[in-house]
């Protein structure tokens, strides 16, 4: 190895690299205005359609998080046609978001019809059967938030679906589906934990990202 691990603070880092990392994070999460002002401040290059795409992705993401799945699907079809056809899991997840919306709005008849027509066909494939059962179980309850499957109504779940959608769209446009920043942090955490294993055996606390950021 070139550098002794204990002398990590002597590793040379390129400013451009740092900027790329920050930019990748901002682009991934569609922070359009911040991207624009960052680019202006640092002079980093960004691809041409970047801003426009970000706009569109942001809208899709927001629709999904709000539970407005139909709009999200529509916009996705515009931005990345055939994406949903190729990605059945995602398609199912989005449709199920719409279903959940109908259930929450107490539109039982519509929810039932939607389930029978759109979700039912997925039931022919084994891997969707349990998921489908999970969602159908919501219909049985007058107060779905009190059913065993209440977590399907939560913001967390919608966020999860929105994230998957975001990643899929990025992948579709040949962009990385994880931001470089996220990856680096993940890797660093693993490496540091690995390195501090010996210390931990001697009674020292293991590596914690939180603590590191605070310090």
């Amino acid at each position, binding site marked *: 190895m070139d550098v002794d691990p204990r002398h990590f603070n002597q590793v040379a880092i390129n400013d451009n690299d740092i900027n790329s990392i920050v930019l990748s994070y901002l682009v991934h999460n569609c922070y359009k205005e911040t991207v624009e002002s960052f680019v202006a401040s640092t002079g980093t290059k960004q691809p041409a359609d970047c801003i426009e795409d970000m706009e569109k992705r942001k809208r899709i993401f927001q629709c999904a998080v709000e539970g407005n799945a139909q709009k999200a699907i529509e916009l996705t079809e515009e931005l990345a046609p055939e994406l949903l056809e190729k990605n059945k899991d995602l398609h199912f997840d989005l449709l199920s978001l719409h279903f959940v919306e109908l259930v929450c709005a107490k539109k039982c008849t519509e929810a039932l019809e939607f389930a*029978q027509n759109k979700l039912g066909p997925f*039931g022919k494939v084994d891997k969707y059967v349990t998921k489908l059962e999970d969602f159908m179980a919501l*219909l049985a309850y*007058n107060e779905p938030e009190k059913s065993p499957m209440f977590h399907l109504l939560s913001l967390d779940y919608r966020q999860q679906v929105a994230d998957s959608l975001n990643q899929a769209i990025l992948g579709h446009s040949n962009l990385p589906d994880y931001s470089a920043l996220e990856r680096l942090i993940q890797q660093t955490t693993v490496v540091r934990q690995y390195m501090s294993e010996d210390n931990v055996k001697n009674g020292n606390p293991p590596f914690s990202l939180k603590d590191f950021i605070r310090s």
Partner: protein
Amino acid sequence: MGGVGDEEPATKRMKLSAGELRGLSNGSSCAEPVAGSSRDLMARPLPSEGDEQVVGSKGVIKRVEFVRLIAKALYSLGYKKSGAHLEEESGIPLHSSFVNLFMQQILDGNWDGSVDTLQKIGLSDETIVKSASFMILEQKYFELLDEEKDMDALKTLRTEIVPLCINGSRVRELSSCIVSPSFGGTPGKNIVRAKSRSKLLEDLQKLLPPTLMILDRRLEHLVEQALVLQRDACIFHNTLNEEMSLYTDHWCGKEQIPSQTLQILQAHNDEVWFLQFSHDGKYLASSSSDQSAIIWEVDVNGGVSLKHRLSGHQKPVSSVSWSPDDHQLLTCGVEEAVRRWDVSSGECLHVYEKPGVGLVSCGWFPDGKCLFSGVSDKSICMWELDGKELECWKGQRSLRISDLEITSDGKQLISNCRENAILLLDREAKVETFIEEDQTITSFSLSRDNRFLLVNLLNQEIHLWNIEGENKLVAKYKGHKRARFVIRSCFGGLEEAFVASGSEDSQVYIWHRGSGELIEALPGHSGAVNCVSWNPANPHMFASASDDRTIRIWGLSGQKVKHRGAHSNGIHLNCNGGT
């Protein structure tokens, strides 16, 4: 347990079931008229016999229960008027009025009504009420789905089933059913999901306490139980399709057991050591110390005649083994070779030998493609039919005098491995288990169902072992004599209910397997009886082999004795009164 109580206080009160009493005290009227007029409701006992709370000589049958079962049986037989009349005359209603209402509502599909009635029926256990309601509403749900009233079904699910707050996983399944008509099944087919209403009633009957709603066919079930017990207790029972009557206890006499010599077969020139019927009972094979084996044919009337004499061995032939399809026979010369013969032609097809050692026992593999034999060097060998050796288990697997059997699924190999132990070798699991005795084991025999082993011991006892799972001794049979020779025993009779054995006192001994009782000791032979084989296809026939060089065929004492012709080498037997 809620429902009709059976603890009637022994007072002079009118004998009403508790359900009726409750009904009366609630102010609702009795559905059925009760015996006597209303003034009889007070104090006076019911007239004549029939005032007892119990019936039957042992005092264990409760009158109320007995009458209700009879009423139920009358109704099931279709005698509605008689049933109703019995209820009236005895004053014992079959079911309370609420139960009757409930049953009718179920059959009519009046779900809401039935759930309602359920509350009034007299159940003290809330969980049962809920489970029963769940069952009923489930039926309602499925019937609605079958009528394609999806929204109504959904409403039932949401507003009636779910609020019961039980059986969440079933709720989950139910809500999936609504998505497609055949969820989980083949798509596109229109399946009826609701079960029949009478099935629902049956299921509810099982759920509710039995005192409340008498189970269907309960009386018939009790009678069948008694008949089965009678039959199992009958130690001479040896005839299939015996019709059992309810009028008297079932009892077979000894005449069911073969006890008369029908034929004597004289064809061997020396002691006959072994014999065995083929699986289909159409042939008998015997082997002798005269170095030959004989295949006999059994004709449709039970007459036995010589078919082939198999010569070739240079040593006494200690045992034979029929192929699974009965087309071939193996014979084993003592510490010599095993020969394979074709049954129809009598031709020797192959000789199996091992240089330097002799073979001591033989057996077929259940698929008929391989055979096993014990070897005098204590190993067990497996051959293909053409003589190619496939496997060899070394170590102390067999003895110089040894039996060898394989279970019919091919999994277990059974062989004498030590003087007082039998080895059970599981070929697949490669596990060995043992049966160990305190005495030297001389021979053993496997039951047809592979579950039991009959083991002959030096001390004149025969032990029955259960070899399913853990090896366990289950019975012992005594009475026969064995001092110097190898004497064999076998299973036999209808469902192998009997154990038969040879004996050194020249008699054939027969025990009832289940009870261990000695049934017969049959004289006839003039030398030690070495082996007995019971015809697997005819429970009324078995054969015995003796040192007196003959084979005797035994049958029922009423049977006609066979007249022998010149060709069959048997002797005409004069039997007094034997027609």
